[in-house]
């Protein structure tokens, strides 16, 4: 191993790993890696996907927890939290995935502002740095464009800017150029070179799957299957193996077993003459617009049968959209596709039998085994039952899938999954194959094998293959290629022809030449004047820095929320809709009871009794019942829910001083209503008895009058109690779900990497993300209060300031509860449902919503009181109808505040700064 940068004052090694192993479940990502990465140079990790490059970089960046072994970065052993804290401001980490750590709805400047704040920079310093970086990267003309709307190359530049905002001593780049067009890629490396000239002490560690790129690095470590198989300068690796290119060197370095039998280079035998007749694929002026955006513009080409046609271009240039139009998945806005001379229509089922399609991402059913996948597709492609089994067996054989036929696709290596996809795409022996980046992420050996299969199909069976790729060496294996950029085809022709036409040495350079001619002048940029770079760092006090970092998250969260209509709607309109529906939907008012009388007596007494019932507003009188069968029928349909049957002889018995019977039929289907209806009816019968007694002049003397008095809610209206209680439920549910999602979203989209790799602390992150939701929930509270007061007409008798203050504490607690849930959940869906399920039971059943807390059994009472809802419910109900103020509610306020702090404390403990 050499130190190409020569002896400098800095330590010779920027990162030292010894005996590092890392496991994901049963899978070894790294096994006993010992490696010293030289400082002050550009160091590369090379190898295909899934060999442990990313894990190694994440360990060095301190965003993953070390499982075994030791790692020293910048001369510090990062096993200790203090060392990681010291290192954080000096290290920059750009995770894998194009712009994954950026916020797509924030603009270029806002994204950079966010990163500047994370490093505690003041506004003036931040602005100066951002201007300089934008200028240097050529992004200066687009400061106000949302990051999500940038092209791949621009996203990658923005990611780089955000990594460089704090002058790191160590820059860690995980596959920074994957999926970017060759021109952007070249510009990116030029930019890095310039930066390194300005800051010779800065060390860079890069992981890449492109072997060509690795040629420009000072030092390399080749990785395979969790182990470093060689390290040294590119020349050293090449001379060690005697290979001409790094890619060949890499294959030579692989252990014998992984290399497989050496089949020599992939060669494309010449095609035998152009077949006569209609071309296999003919695209005429294909155009696709999504709203204002033109994804594909006027694309035309003609492909003869049996040709391998390569389709090159960067991510997002319109390749996939074009291919979807050619398969009939998308209808073109303009233009048409003809397959063997016949026009393709989306609804045309027959033409689909002639096409095999393989989409970019793995897209077979993970829940079916390899064989089940094949059988399902054989059936859907209408392969006759008698041929089906034979065909499946044939395909298993051809694509060497026999051994894995009963496995689930999920667990298989990428290379085998790609073969399976190809097997599925060809099961019906199509004459045209459309393959969308089938080999991305596959290691070189598997890729070569894959290409041999394609060539065999093309040459032996005359299958026309339309394949998109971003690997230049794959493009060279095609009969003809086309170069696509920004929705347009720039070049079509045989690879050698294009190279000759552009007057370059390689296909890659020819592609770059095409792109350069196309690129708008404003984007070319990179005047690379970085004289201001590395300007004096101002260092504000620790407290100011901490507040700045916290604010960085609050501010970003607020912007994102405002720009996400669905979440905003849920946060602001959701509570109102819920209160409206719950206010009307959960009512314990029993009125409009449909009542009918079945009077078989027809005496003045029976009529007097019936009148009692029809006189009160709770009963709605329905037509009289004439026959017993009618009573039965009308109760069965639910037309009447209470019926009074007065038997014959009622009046006579009363006169004779006997006690006559009456029958009261109540619909018991809804027990609560039935109970209440029964209560009403008994009261009415009492009244009837009194009236009768009065009429007869009997005063029994010594009667007891049992009076009832309704406190706090004289009208005994359900809404007066339920609406304040609903506030408790709604302000629990919605804020908790919102805040739970906000944290889990970061995990899902990958922006959590910013939290892991920057100096922001756990409390700063959590409180910062919580603040916007506290504010928005508190606004919700005032809207709910207004709705309760003026829509549901609930009187408000307490102190509105007190309820406002307690509600503020309550939403702090409920948003904190959401964050606590988010620390256990991984996806947004599980966060939503877990929060809903976990919070609904205690709040609905044990917080006094239906059963008063005082009537619960001791266990239930303790359970209820261990959630903030049971403490908020008395405050809300009390402030509305009981006239409560501070003196009544200080204990509730205190308890809710304790809950808020406890949830925050637990979330901080449960939150991991480093990934497992």
């Amino acid at each position, binding site marked *: 191993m050499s130190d190409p940068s020569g002896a400098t004052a800095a330590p010779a090694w920027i990162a030292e790993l010894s005996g590092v192993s890392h496991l994901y479940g049963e899978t070894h990502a790294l096994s006993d890696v010992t490696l010293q990465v030289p400082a002050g140079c550009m160091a590369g990790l090379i190898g295909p996907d899934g060999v442990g490059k990313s894990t190694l970089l994440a360990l060095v960046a301190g965003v993953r927890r070390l499982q075994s072994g030791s790692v020293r970065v910048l001369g510090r052993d990062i096993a200790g939290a203090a060392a990681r804290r010291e290192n954080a401001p000096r290290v920059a980490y750009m995770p894998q995935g194009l712009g994954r750590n950026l916020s797509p709805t924030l603009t270029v400047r806002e994204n950079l502002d966010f990163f500047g704040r994370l490093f505690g920079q003041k506004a003036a310093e931040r602005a100066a740095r951002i201007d300089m970086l934008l200028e240097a990267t050529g992004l200066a003309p687009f400061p106000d464009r949302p990051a999500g709307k940038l092209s791949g190359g621009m996203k990658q530049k923005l990611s780089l800017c955000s990594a460089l905002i704090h002058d790191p001593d160590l820059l860690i780049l995980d596959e920074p150029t994957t999926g970017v067009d060759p021109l952007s890629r070249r510009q990116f490396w030029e930019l890095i070179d310039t930066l390194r000239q300005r800051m010779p002490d800065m060390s860079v560690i890069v992981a890449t799957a492109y072997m060509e790129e690795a040629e420009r690095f000072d030092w390399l470590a080749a990785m395979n299957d969790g182990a470093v198989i060689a390290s040294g300068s590119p020349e050293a690796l090449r001379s060690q193996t005697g290979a001409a290119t790094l890619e060949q060197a890499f294959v030579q370095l692989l252990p014998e077993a992984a290399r497989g039998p050496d089949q020599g280079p992939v060669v494309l035998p010449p095609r035998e003459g152009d077949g006569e007749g209609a071309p296999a694929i003919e695209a005429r002026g294909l155009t696709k617009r999504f709203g204002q955006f033109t994804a594909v513009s006027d694309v035309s080409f003609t492909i003869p049968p049996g040709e391998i046609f390569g389709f090159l271009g960067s991510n997002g240039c319109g390749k996939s959209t074009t291919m979807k139009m050619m398969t009939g998945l998308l209808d073109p806005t303009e233009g048409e596709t003809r397959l063997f001379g016949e026009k393709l229509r989306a609804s045309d089922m027959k033409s689909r039998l002639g096409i095999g*399609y393989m989409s970019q991402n793995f897209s077979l059913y993970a829940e079916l085994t390899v064989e089940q996948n094949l059988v399902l597709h054989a059936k859907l492609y209408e392969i006759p039952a008698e041929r089906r089994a034979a065909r499946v067996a044939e395909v298993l054989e051809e694509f060497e899938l026999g051994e894995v036929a009963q496995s689930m696709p999920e667990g298989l290596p990428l290379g085998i999954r790609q073969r399976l996809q190809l097997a599925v795409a060809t099961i019906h022996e199509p004459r045209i194959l459309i393959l969308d980046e089938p080999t991305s992420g596959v290691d070189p050996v598997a890729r070569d094998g894959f290409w041999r299969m394609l060539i065999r199909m093309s040459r032996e069976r005359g299958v026309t293959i339309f394949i998109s790729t971003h690997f230049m060496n794959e493009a060279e294996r095609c009969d003809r290629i086309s170069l696509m950029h920004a929705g347009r085809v720039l070049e079509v022709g045989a690879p050698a022809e294009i190279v000759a036409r552009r007057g370059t040495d390689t296909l890659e350079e020819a592609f770059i030449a095409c792109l350069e001619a196309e690129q708008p002048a404003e984007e070319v940029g990179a005047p690379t004047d970085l004289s201001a770079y590395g300007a004096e760092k101002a260092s504000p006090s620790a407290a100011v820095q901490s507040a700045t970092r916290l604010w960085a998250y609050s501010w970003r969260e607020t912007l994102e929320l405002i720009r996400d209509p669905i979440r905003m709607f849920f946060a602001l309109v959701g509570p109102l*809709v819920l209160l409206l529906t719950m206010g009307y939907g959960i009512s314990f008012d029993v009125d409009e009871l449909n009542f009918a009388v079945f009077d078989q007596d027809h005496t003045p007494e029976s009529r007097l009794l019936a009148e009692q019932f029809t006189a009160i507003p709770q009963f709605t009188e329905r037509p009289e019942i004439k026959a017993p069968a009618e009573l039965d029928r009308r109760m069965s349909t639910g037309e009447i829910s209470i019926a009074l049957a007065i038997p014959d002889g009622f009046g006579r018995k009363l006169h004779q001083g006997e006690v006559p019977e009456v029958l009261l039929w109540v619909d018991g289907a809804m027990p609560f209503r039935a109970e209440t209806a029964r209560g009403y009816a008994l009261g009415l019968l009492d009244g009837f008895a009194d009236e009768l007694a009065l009429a007869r002049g009997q005063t029994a003397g010594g009667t007891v009058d049992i009076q009832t008095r309704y406190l706090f809610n004289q009208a005994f209206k359900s809404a007066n109690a339920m609406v304040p209680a609903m506030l408790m439920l709604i302000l629990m549910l919605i804020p908790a779900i919102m805040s739970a999602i906000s944290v889990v979203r970061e995990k899902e989209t990958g922006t959590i990497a910013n939290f892991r790799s920057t100096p922001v602390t756990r409390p700063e992150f959590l409180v910062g993300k919580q603040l916007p939701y506290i504010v928005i929930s508190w606004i919700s509270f005032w809207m709910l209060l207004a709705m309760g007061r003026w829509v549901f007409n609930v009187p408000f008798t307490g102190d509105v300031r007190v309820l406002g203050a307690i509600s503020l504490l309550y939403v702090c607690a409920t948003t904190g509860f959401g964050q606590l849930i988010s620390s256990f959940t991984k996806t947004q869906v599980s966060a939503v449902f877990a929060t809903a399920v976990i919070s609904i039971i205690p709040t609905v059943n044990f917080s006094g919503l239906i059963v008063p807390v005082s009537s619960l059994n001791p266990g239930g009472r303790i359970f209820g009181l261990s959630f903030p809802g049971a403490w908020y419910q008395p405050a809300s109900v009390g402030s509305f109808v009981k006239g409560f103020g501070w003196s009544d509610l200080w204990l509730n306020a205190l308890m809710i505040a304790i809950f808020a702090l406890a949830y925050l404390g637990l979330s901080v403990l449960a939150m991991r700064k480093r990934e497992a």
Partner: protein
Amino acid sequence: MQSLLNTLRLTVKELRAIRGDKVMLALIFYVFTAATWLVSDASSTDISDLSVAVVDEDHSPLSYRLTDAIRGPLFAPPPVISPGQAKQGQTDGDYVLVVSIPPHFQRDLSAGKDVSLMILIDATAVAQAGNGASYMQQVLADELAKFTSPGAQSEDLVQVVMRNRFNPNLTSKWFSSVMQLMNSVTILTLILAGSSLIREREHGTIEHVLVMPVRPHEIVFSKILATGIVILASSVASLFLVVQWGMGVPVAGSPLLYTCGAAIYVVAVGSLGLLLASFTQNMGQFGLLVIPVIIVMFLLSGGITPMESMPGWLRLVMKTLSPSPHYVEFAQSVLYRGSGLALVAGNLVAMALMALVSLVIVIGRFRKVLAN
């Protein structure tokens, strides 16, 4: 024919997917067994152990008798407290009812004077206070009757015989168990159907299916069919095994009719789930959209509060947009009242129409959804 075969093949695939999702299976099992049981028992509006207190300013044998008469299972044992304590206690929500016995109560009553007892009700406990108070009145009146005319049969002028149709003892779990079942069917069908579409879109498998000779309606039908079979089978099993057999709730109507109606409901809700899914980009958004929809569909279905108690416009909106009120009416008629097809045909037609409208929109939007 090919179309039907494709639908069936895709349905088998969907069923395998559901079988593969162990968490979802566990959730379905839990919801239709333990949750049905627990919630039916817990969310009860039955009066039991109601917290009450007595303010006894009489301290007579009669006042002691009255205090003793207040006992379980309806009421928790009442403490005897002072008027001041009672006021504070009710303000703090410690007692739902306070019975106040005035001074010289027994003496005045025996002297033939008219006397009065007071029941103070915390009217913020709306679910229990009203019925609790009417029970309390009854308890006190019975005890007083025993005191004033011991041995007498009844001093009532009229003997009232109560007959509760369809639920003789007014057991609230008879009601809540079936409503809980409907709630579970709604939640699970919406989530299962919706997420099956979003999952395919997120994994890119839907594209794959669409380049094959398969039509959008075959995909849509297969999803609804698979979801429907699973949910319908488990809900019907839950009704007859857990609710009828386990909890002892009688089912009055025809099981076949109920199953048919439930099938139509599941299709309607499943189509609605797909419709919602077609308006969202990812599972996160779907989750946010589906939760309010579930709550509204459930609370305003008539299963919690009868439709009659809602304002007319709201009733109209719900009956036009949501299949749930129709299902509740249907289920109550068939399961409790034993109604036949003729009585519930209207509900069935309404649910079927809603399913149809949702399906037409979903199929119409299918390709457009993929383009985004």
